[in-house]
């Protein structure tokens, strides 16, 4: 293995902090900076305690560092729109964990390879997108999906202010990515926050209007894509395997988190931060082969 990617995280909320723990375990990443805007942020304190440099200057803190290979943006849709051109100018590969969707949507189990080496900014859609798009893709590679609909239910505690202020962007980005990446002709996304205590696991219901006579092939295809997602999100599982209900197929997935930052109920953090790590690691491998060429 070659040198580690010099990596920075911008945004020290729930997602940024969970991501930090995962990157620290990755053999492909050296986390050189965690940048936020709130000096009192718990995420920044945790980063500092792990020996990572921190900044409260947001994007400026990131731009002040030279030779960064990769920057993970875990702020919000609006901030990322401002960050994207600056990161591009600085020559950093940007992994966007907000619903801003500046670059192409990437869901590692579905379309990571085709976006490698072409885009310098990739968008990870949303947690709901990462959890449900593979299922819709698993169906649409068997038979045409006329309409896909997903309902993501997450515990209130795992939805930080960024998610709450971006709730419209969440539904819109998820919807769009279900079409572009999942392969549905049309789509709708719904998100529900549930404050129950103890907190609920992240759960997602997926509906697809399609030729339900192909349910056996659909079930096999979905099982194989679930296995592909499990390679980078171990807590991802099919709660209810696809079944036909009239003109549509129904399936449910649940995500148990690794418990890195928030406890295991926060599978919604894990699924997107794990996707980010998967993208980063694949990018590291790709860069290495490019150097050898």
């Amino acid at each position, binding site marked *: 293995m070659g040198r580690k990617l010099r990596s920075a995280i911008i945004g020290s909320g729930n997602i940024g902090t969970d991501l930090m723990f995962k990157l620290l375990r990755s053999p492909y990443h050296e986390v050189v900076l965690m940048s936020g805007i709130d000096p009192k942020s718990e995420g920044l304190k945790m980063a500092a305690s792990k020996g990572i440099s921190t900044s409260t200057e947001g994007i400026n803190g990131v731009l002040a560092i030279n030779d960064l290979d990769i920057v993970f943006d875990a702020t919000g849709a609006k901030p990322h729109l401002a960050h994207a051109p600056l990161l591009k100018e600085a020559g950093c590969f940007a992994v966007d964990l907000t619903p801003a969707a500046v670059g192409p949507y990437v869901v590692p189990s579905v379309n990571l390879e085709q976006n490698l080496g072409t885009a310098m900014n990739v968008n990870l859609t949303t947690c709901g997108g990462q959890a449900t798009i593979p299922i819709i893709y698993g169906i649409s590679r068997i038979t045409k999906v006329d*309409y896909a*609909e997903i*309902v993501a*239910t997450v515990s*209130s505690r795992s939805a930080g*202010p960024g998610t*709450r*202020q971006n*709730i*419209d962007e969440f*539904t*819109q980005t998820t919807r769009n990515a279900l079409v572009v990446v999942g392969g549905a002709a049309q789509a*709708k996304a*719904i*998100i*529900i*926050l*549930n*404050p*129950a*205590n103890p907190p*609920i696991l992240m*759960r997602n*219901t997926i*509906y697809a*209007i399609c030729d339900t006579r192909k349910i056996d092939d659909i079930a096999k295809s979905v099982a194989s894509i679930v296995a592909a997602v499990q390679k980078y999100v171990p807590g991802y599982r099919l*709660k*209810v395997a696809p079944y036909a*209900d009239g003109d*549509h197929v*129904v399936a*449910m997935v649940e995500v148990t988190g690794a418990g890195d930052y928030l406890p295991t109920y926060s599978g919604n953090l894990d699924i997107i931060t794990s996707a980010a790590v998967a993208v980063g690691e694949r990018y590291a491998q790709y860069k290495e082969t490019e150097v050898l060429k």
Partner: protein
Amino acid sequence: MKAIRIIDATLRDGMHAVSHQLTPEQMAAIAVGLEAAGVDTIEIGHGDGLGGSSLQYGFGKASDLEYVKAIAKAVKKTKIDLLLIPGIGTIEDLEVAIQYGVKTVRVATHVTEADVGEQHIAFTKKHGLEAVGFLMMSHMATPEKVAEQAKLFERYGADIVYVTDSAGAMLPDDVKVRVAAVKKAISLPVGFHAHNNLGLAIGNTLAAIEAGATIVDGTVRGFGGGAGNAQLEVLVAVLKRLGYETGIDLYKIMDVGEQLIDPILHRPQIVSNEALAIGYAGAYGSFLLHARRAAEKFGVDARDILIEMGRRKTVGGQEDLIIDVAIDLAKAK
């Protein structure tokens, strides 16, 4: 004479009782009747508000826009109100709909999650419309928590804050303490939306008024999710007896019920066993027909599903969990 403003939700909450299948023409005809009876504000559209048309909640007979257009053409004085549940509907949906003379937008969140509605309240106010913060499932939070969330809506710029008993689970004292706490915490008018699952919709509405609510919801014939809402014609009569002015003509609103609502009911608007289970368990009112359907499909008792939905502390909109619960109950058999 003291005045109470009534917001009629017949053409929105009633949609739950007919699986969202009213046509725009049917809605427009009822809207004309409501206006003639003197109703000030009518909430219209899919039962789950803007963007509610879905596999999860049931596809609407028509689109949001078709309903808004048809009703905007039919009424002159009566104000049109739309419900928006963040996470289901978006500002994108609202932007299109408000071009047709909508006057009021109710931004509905779970009682502890008002902050997901900040951008929607701000958008509504920016367009000069009346904004209502609508705290659903208020029975699930303490009076202090309800008041805290009401304050958030006030800070975002709402004109009115509602205490909403989506499950029809509150007893009169539960209503009083919550409405009073909100009234004390904010300087805006306070509203109350009742459901009749425990047979208390009218009584709870009176309790809310006693505690300081000045805006209350009703639906003709009680047409609505679960066991339905506070029956509007009854409410008008009761409020008249108590000396409140609502602006609504009693005979005319009774006639709307007999001539326009009775013929379209899919089933009598009563406290059915399942509706009672909803109120008793504190589950979301519109789960009723979904639970009935899942019970049939998976061979379990709908009441067991609804009680379990309450036990799991589900919130509004979690219709998909009904299937999950039905499957679990069937397995446990």
